């Protein structure tokens, strides 16, 4: 479950597609392949953004790579592309894209869109590192995971409560016995005092 690259792309409806910011994670490729792979990823990102209309999400598969693209359009005419392997779950990928685009629009002013090399968006690198694990990206998956853990903990709690019940039952038997024995003790002690004055 890996993310290979994330890219934020300026995609005006009629015009050329410009990659504004991108980050790659090519650690799984050998040194000599890295160049080729990164070129291919860039090209793939551009192509799929061109083929996606505004306000649409698409997922495209190319050999082992899956490209999830979300063309948000809007005022900034931005689109986000994320290239992952086939295992990466689809829905969190799109959630990640939405989050990425929102973050980008808040951090980077629209004026610098014309000058791609001047845009600095270091968060994109942190994004790609942090969200290799989809659970981190998607709040829903994280929530589900936490709920499952809580359920397991609760099951264990119920089992321990059952054991507590058993122990309490044993305790009450013991205390019953003790109580009766102490009553007998009291009776015998009283008997000592009253009768057998001879002794």
């Amino acid at each position, binding site marked *: 479950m890996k993310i290979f690259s994330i890219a934020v792309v300026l995609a005006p409806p009629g015009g050329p597609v410009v990659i504004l910011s991108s980050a790659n994670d090519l650690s799984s490729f050998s040194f000599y392949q890295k160049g080729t792979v990164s070129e291919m990823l860039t090209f793939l990102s551009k192509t799929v953004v061109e083929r996606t209309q505004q306000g649409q999400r*698409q997922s495209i598969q190319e050999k082992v790579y899956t490209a999830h693209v979300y063309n948000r359009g809007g005022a900034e005419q931005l689109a986000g592309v994320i290239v992952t392997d086939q295992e990466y779950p689809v829905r969190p990928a799109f959630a990640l894209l939405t989050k990425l685009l929102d973050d980008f629009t808040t951090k980077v002013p629209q004026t610098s869109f014309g000058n791609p090399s001047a845009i600095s968006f270091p968060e994109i690198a942190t994004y790609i590192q942090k969200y290799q694990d989809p659970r981190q990206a998607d709040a829903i998956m994280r929530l589900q995971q936490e709920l499952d853990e809580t359920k397991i903990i609760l099951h264990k709690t119920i089992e321990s409560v059952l054991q507590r019940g058993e122990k309490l039952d044993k305790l009450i038997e013991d205390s019953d016995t003790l109580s009766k024995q102490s009553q007998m003790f009291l009776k015998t002690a009283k008997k000592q005092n009253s009768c057998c004055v001879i002794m």
Partner: protein
Amino acid sequence: MSVQDRTNEFKACVESIRSRSSLPSHADTKQRLLQQDGKPGPKSEFSRMASAIGKDISGTTLKLSKLAQLAKRKTLFDDRPVEISELTFIIKQDIAGINKKIAALQSYVKQRNASGSSSAEGKQIDEHNNNVVMLLQSKLATTSMTFKDVLEVRTQNMKESKNRTEQFMYSTATAANQAPSSKFFRLVDSMLYGSQRSDPMGDGSPSHLDSKGKGRAPQNGDVLALDLNSAEEGGGAHGGALMQMQMVEQQDSYIQQRSTAIESIETTIAELGQIFTQLANMVAEQRETVQRIDADTHDIASNIGGAQRELLKYYASISSNRWLMLKVFGVLIVFVSFDDFT
């Protein structure tokens, strides 16, 4: 626990005892008691109806115990849902039928009461009938409660087995999640292929995607079927309307995926709530036990305190000199008097 009819054995015993102890004066009344089915009229019919209902209830209880056994099974794969659902259905029908019969019996009893039998014997008969009806109703109520418990156990086991299958086959679930989106991979591929005919982008890519289109091993049967379909359609005509509809479906699928995920979260939270209530119940039940233990401990403490006081008094009385003096003088006097005598 099947109903056995041992009336004949009973009759044989009675006959043998009667022949042993000759009591001819009571023979007639005993005869009458024995030959109830010979007596005509509503009394025997009532007992017949009641016994039929009792037999039905015991039969239903048998089926219910079989269902409980089936529902308790926790195996992942050998679950027999068809049998269980059939059995559930049969038991439900049985319970409904028994209910109707008991209602009929009750109305029958009321009718007999209304028709009036003021003799003392009649009153006893009515009381007996009413008691029998109550007994049957209570038996039916316990059977229904057991049925409900078995159904609850069954749903719990089903949920557990579903969780376990999800745990073991998580990868299959993710593959299944990707299957719907892979449908759209295919269509987008064919779209790209179609549009690139008119606008060739580069050398490598169209043939890449094209060969990808026809030669990729599908993930499961659904995708394969749609592969062939869309390959034909996409290759043949640019079915624009069809593809647009599929595009809309993809948007929906994202939203639908989100909604399913959220629904599953909702169910999980509801389950958690249930678990919490169960937990609270159990702890509340244990509270009573703890209170008993507390009371017992108090009793023990007071008993032991009292016993200690008594022992102290005893010790004080023994170690005080008064009795000692009396005993010593008593012994001396006894010795002196014995001495005097000798």
